[in-house]
């Protein structure tokens, strides 16, 4: 039980950190100044969320465990984030599509997690929900703008959709540590939020003049929650963790 909660909390933390990390790669390189600021802001929210979860996970262990130890000293096979958060940004369309599908998931998810019997998780969910509401709005607006913008942007967002879609199935398949916490009403039963998510995604895609993929026949990627990642995560971590690895045991 204890360990399931720890793994579950790490899964949530890893989601936010890797997504925030990827978004932060846009900082200084955005397509316009206002959007550079907006995407940095979302990255900042996500990194903040991850810190709350890591701190809670660390508190579940003994005093020697810290948020930074959890973020910086685990290798890729121990990371439990959804694959959608770690895949490269690609162009603005792909980044937007990743963020839209993921934020909508986070929105549906946190709406349930605020009722968790674990007070700490519930509290983090409540705080995060406000932020994610904005992320959903911002990314939805961009999906619509690109879908219903120019021919070029429509082509790009469609391609992004094709590329990112196979990474959504995993969101609704609980890992073992997740399933085992459902009965105690600690974890969210992710299979139950799928319809809510689908409805929200569908309505934005429609407004964007994009069609919802016929889900049943699409093969879905999986593995992230159990540490089986894409080949990209290793590179992300090598970069992110360099200083902590190269100068072990230091204060920064």
């Amino acid at each position, binding site marked *: 039980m204890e360990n399931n909660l720890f793994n579950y909390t790490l899964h949530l933390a890893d989601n936010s950190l890797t997504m925030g990390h990827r978004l932060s790669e846009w900082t200084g*390189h955005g397509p*316009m100044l206002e*959007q*550079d*600021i907006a995407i940095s802001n979302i990255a900042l929210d996500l990194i903040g969320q991850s810190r709350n979860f890591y701190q809670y996970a660390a508190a579940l262990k003994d005093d020697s465990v810290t948020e930074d130890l959890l973020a910086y000293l685990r290798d890729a096979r121990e990371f439990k984030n959804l694959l959608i958060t770690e895949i490269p940004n690609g162009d603005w369309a792909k980044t937007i599509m990743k963020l839209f599908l993921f934020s909508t998931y986070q929105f549906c998810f946190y709406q349930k997690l605020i009722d968790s019997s674990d007070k700490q998780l519930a509290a983090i969910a409540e705080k995060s929900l406000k932020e994610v509401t904005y992320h959903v709005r911002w990314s939805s607006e961009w999906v619509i703008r690109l879908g219903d*913008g120019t021919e070029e942007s429509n082509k790009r967002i469609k391609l992004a959709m094709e590329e990112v879609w196979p990474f959504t199935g995993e969101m609704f398949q609980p890992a073992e540590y997740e399933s085992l916490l459902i009965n105690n009403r600690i974890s969210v039963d992710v299979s139950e939020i799928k319809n809510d998510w689908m409805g929200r995604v569908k309505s934005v895609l429609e407004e964007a003049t994009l069609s919802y993929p016929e889900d049943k026949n699409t093969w879905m990627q999986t593995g992230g929650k159990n540490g089986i990642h894409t080949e990209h995560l290793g590179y992300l971590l090598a970069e992110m963790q360099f200083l902590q690895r190269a100068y072990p045991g230091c204060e920064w």
Partner: protein
Amino acid sequence: MATEELQKVFDDKIAEEIRIEPKDWMPDDYRKTLIRQISQHAHSEIVGMLPEANWITRAPSLRRKATLLAKVQDEAGHGLYLYSAAETMGITREEMVDQLLSGKAKYSSIFNYPTLTWADIGAIGWLVDGAAIMNQVPLCRASYGPYARAMVRICKEESFHQRQGFEILLTLCKGSKEQKEMAQDALNRWWWPSLMMFGPNDDTSPHTAQSMKWKIKRFSNDELRQKFVDVCNEQADILGITIPDDKLVWNEKRQHYDFGEINWNEFFNVIKGNGPCNKERLAARVSAHENGEWVREAALAYARKKAPKSPSGEFESFRN
């Protein structure tokens, strides 16, 4: 009113420390000088994001990562305020950005140096933001209203950044031997370029007198530089690291620190384009601009579709 009268009204306002506002008459040269200065300042904020963004993905702790990200984001915000302030003088953001990307407009040369270690992030906060504040605090009283007001907001945030930078270095200096070396090394590399941030010596700075008269400038380059050297000396002592200048010594008579000669050759060389990162910085901005072109076009097309009757001002935020 005749130009002469307008000039008199303008001069009187300057003399009485009354702010010039966008709709007021102002001399052409005043306008030109300010457009150049403000846009250059804006460009510096934008290009200045790059050396620091270089360490966001490698920041050594979650707290530092968040703080650095927020800081770089603030700089984008400063860029925005400043572009807006310049726009009140009748130039568009597109024009200014084109000048930057074509190499016609300048930005602060300090950002053409590379950030090689984490300590450089501390040094930039401490020294570069420190020098910037020294330059900018007097600008909060600049004669042009929108500029002065933008500077008030900017200075508040900059001094926060400067404290963060100092604190990064302080942590390193209290840390392992390697960390302390990292801090010293960063100081060695950033010290002289920071002193150059105040511009050429007064006797080779022809525009200073006019700018002072217009109250765009309140202190000369050398005055500000001296103030900076004096302050940094004390702060370096707190850190326990050594400013790389063996001519640096307290002058009892002047009640200031004397310091060594700046390598003006390097200064003018970097301005000319010959700094370690000039090409890469500009290339990064050009590539962001070009890769963003289809995005801006899409946003504009969508906005036009949805609000066919609205004035073009609505699309402000998608133009660049």
